[in-house]
């Protein structure tokens, strides 16, 4: 165990000490900004996402109430009301028709179903049987022979992805303005993985309810990215992507010039996925989790995300600056494995806080080369430090 890790563990532990009746969020964010030790992460994320209140004394009551409320949502949306509505029939198109709602739900469900089944295929976790199936467990399944629904599988117990299916369906019902958008499956995956793998069984048991609330908290901050009608607005994803390329331009105009002006690489080609999914598809799950520690601990959420993206690009600068369109895009869409996310987070912080000078184009070209050289040295130094 590296000394750096122990130091970090101690710092986070101090903030979360039992004797601290009220958690100092500022201190917590500061302590977590370069990562949270595994055993403290489930609690840390619940706090950082503003789900758990800061007063320790109210936790027990609060969690009991929230988890009961979640059960009520499950019975409302999933157990369903089988009440017969006279005069209603399957071909009734009016919005008040229960059948109309039923068919709309099936479309949403079929979409969620397709996506949660293929979440993180490289690991076994989401295919496994959960130790804590929902007690009301009438699993979300389409009740009609609708062609978009796969036949219900006969399995003993409930798989982890089925839990996610239920959470996402409830989220879509409660948020009709956003509903379910592809990619939400990728965002909920790491949250649930962290909560469900909690070694403390008393917490793991309620991973489902807590994931639902934490997902809702997270979505409250980033849902604009998922709303099509906001795409062109100030808060939509198009503007986030534009700002990202502006950031690249102001930090490294030469590289921006090569990638964006010369090769015409648009942010839609790669940064859409990076930014809207908070890099969850770019790295393996353990790395995504480490990365999210820092993103969640960001006092100015989620501005660090763009800087991590910039750090990713800068870490590949040598290759990208001379790459062809195809080679550059291939790299940006398939970020190389084995890059330490800790290094990237450090670089992201350093760029944001001005500890790494931007590579401004000065009057003379040789200066540019010198500055680029400086950055390269800096990057090597970081890489060296973190591998130690």
């Amino acid at each position: 165990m590296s000394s750096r890790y122990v130091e970090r563990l101690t710092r986070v532990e101090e903030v979360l000490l039992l004797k601290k009746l009220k958690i100092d969020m500022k201190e917590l964010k500061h302590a977590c900004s370069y990562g949270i030790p595994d055993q403290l992460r489930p609690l840390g994320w619940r706090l950082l996402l503003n789900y758990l209140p800061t007063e320790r004394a109210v936790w027990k009551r609060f969690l009991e109430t929230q988890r009961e409320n979640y059960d009520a949502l499950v019975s409302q949306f999933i157990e369903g009301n089988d009440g017969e509505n006279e005069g209603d029939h399957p071909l009734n198109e009016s919005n008040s028709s229960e059948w109309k709602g039923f068919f709309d739900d099936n479309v949403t469900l079929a979409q969620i179903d397709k996506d949660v089944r293929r979440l993180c295929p490289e690991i076994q976790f989401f295919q496994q049987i959960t130790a804590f199936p929902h007690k009301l467990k009438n699993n979300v399944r389409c009740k009609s022979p609708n062609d978009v629904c796969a036949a219900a599988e006969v399995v003993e117990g409930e798989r982890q992805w089925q839990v996610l299916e239920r959470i996402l369906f409830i989220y879509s019902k409660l948020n009709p303005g956003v509903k379910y958008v592809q990619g939400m499956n990728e965002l909920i995956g790491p949250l649930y993985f962290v909560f469900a793998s909690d070694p403390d069984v008393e917490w793991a048991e309620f991973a489902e309810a807590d994931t639902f609330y934490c997902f809702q908290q997270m979505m409250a901050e980033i849902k604009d990215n998922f709303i099509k009608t906001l795409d062109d607005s100030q808060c939509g994803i198009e503007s986030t992507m534009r700002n990202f390329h502006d950031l690249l331009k102001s930090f490294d105009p030469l590289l921006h010039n090569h990638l964006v002006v010369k090769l015409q690489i648009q942010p839609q080609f790669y940064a859409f996925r990076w930014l809207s999914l908070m890099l969850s598809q770019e790295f393996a799950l353990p790395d995504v989790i480490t990365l999210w520690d820092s993103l969640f601990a960001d006092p100015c959420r989620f501005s660090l995300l763009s800087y991590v993206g910039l750090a990713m690009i800068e870490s590949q600068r040598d290759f990208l600056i001379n790459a062809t369109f195809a080679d550059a895009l291939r790299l940006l869409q398939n970020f190389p494995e084995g890059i330490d996310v800790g290094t990237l987070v450090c670089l992201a912080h350093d760029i944001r806080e001005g500890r790494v000078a931007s590579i401004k184009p000065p009057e003379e070209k040789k200066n540019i080369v010198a500055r680029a050289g400086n950055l390269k040295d800096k990057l090597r130094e970081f890489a060296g430090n973190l591998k130690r």
Partner: protein
Amino acid sequence: MSSAPHKKALLKVIILGDSGVGKTSLMNQFVDQRFSNQHKVTIGADFIMKDMLVDGRLVTMQIWDTAGQERFQSLGVAFYRGADCCVLAYDVTNSTSFKNLDPWRDEFLIQASPRDPEHFPFVLLGNKVDLAQDRAVSRKKAEAWCQTKTKMPYFEVSAKEAVNIDLAFQTIARAALARESQDTQDFPDFPAQVLLDCGNAKSSSFCSCQ
């Protein structure tokens, strides 16, 4: 002698269709001769290149595999522009994915706005023919639809069992090649390079035009 026999053509192809019809699998089968139902949801679009021989000529296919959910259509314009051929894909066991072909085709034509949209090359792929027992759209029905779209070529394929994939992509490449050699000014609205750099209100003071 053909014009520029030594120049390798770069053909841009875009695959559209509902989520889950197997667009990514079709592309993977074509490029890597592999099938896996274990791939992630496509968000935005994935990009892949492959060299192939078409009628003795070496061409590079630049294939864009797009996200299937309707939400992502507004991003489409970034991917659609400059396409030489558009592949529409549906799942023969899912009638909704067949019904949505018209909207996908319309959306492409609106967003890409090619010259002469009536003759822009499309190719239709009906995937998952290995699931014969679950078939929901007949070959006849699909062929009839293609007839109404200036005889769009149609292939029944299976990404899982590698049925007709090479044949389909040969046709796609040929259609793209024919289009590409026809007119380089296919997309009149494609912005000139210089505009991208200087038209941006937020450009920094280092913009070369200032």
